């Protein structure tokens, strides 16, 4: 397996974005923010079913 980065700031940024994305999508599902906002934040919703 390739070496995984140990850059703490990069990992922190990624995980912070993961949590932030969830909060944004929660607002979206409640109709309190638009799909355009998701796009602006680089959030992609999928249909994996």
């Amino acid at each position: 397996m390739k070496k995984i980065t140990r850059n703490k700031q990069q990992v922190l940024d990624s995980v912070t974005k993961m949590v932030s994305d969830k909060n944004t999508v929660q607002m979206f599902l409640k109709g309190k923010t638009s799909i355009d906002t998701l796009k602006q934040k680089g959030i992609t919703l999928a249909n994996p079913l």
Partner: protein
Amino acid sequence: MPIPYNYYFNDHLQFYYFTTKNNIEYRVAFILDETFTAVSGFEINNIFQIVIEKVNDTLEKLDVQVSATIQTIIARFFINSQNSMIYVCDDKDKKGIKRFNVFNRWYKKSGLISEIKKKDNIIKCYSGDEVLIIYSSLLYHQNNKNKETIIEVYNTIQEILNEK
């Protein structure tokens, strides 16, 4: 198992939805997750973060058909055994552990545990003087060809962020 509600996909807005007998609408979205790719530095596909929300904050009596419906959606998600799912609860409102435990109870009762494995990580992010606690679960199919890699990245995230 209780009878699940019929659920539908909103093509335009990209979420699943169903309405309960008490006329409460639930919505389920899957975020294409890039955390594992960003952390590992190589491409890891088919990881999604699930988000489940009621449209309104109306209190509802326990409705077992809701969890049955969520279970149906998740079981269908794992028909593709290469899919993996992240469930995240932050603790900003101090209710993260409660939601985390509810999800864990649901999983244990789901009937999916023979095929769908769950690994939990409680991540403490130390950033300056602040500590952010994130309760997270990774769900993956036992036949996922990349499960060792995915688990290693998931563990690495916890290790790195738990370092002070």
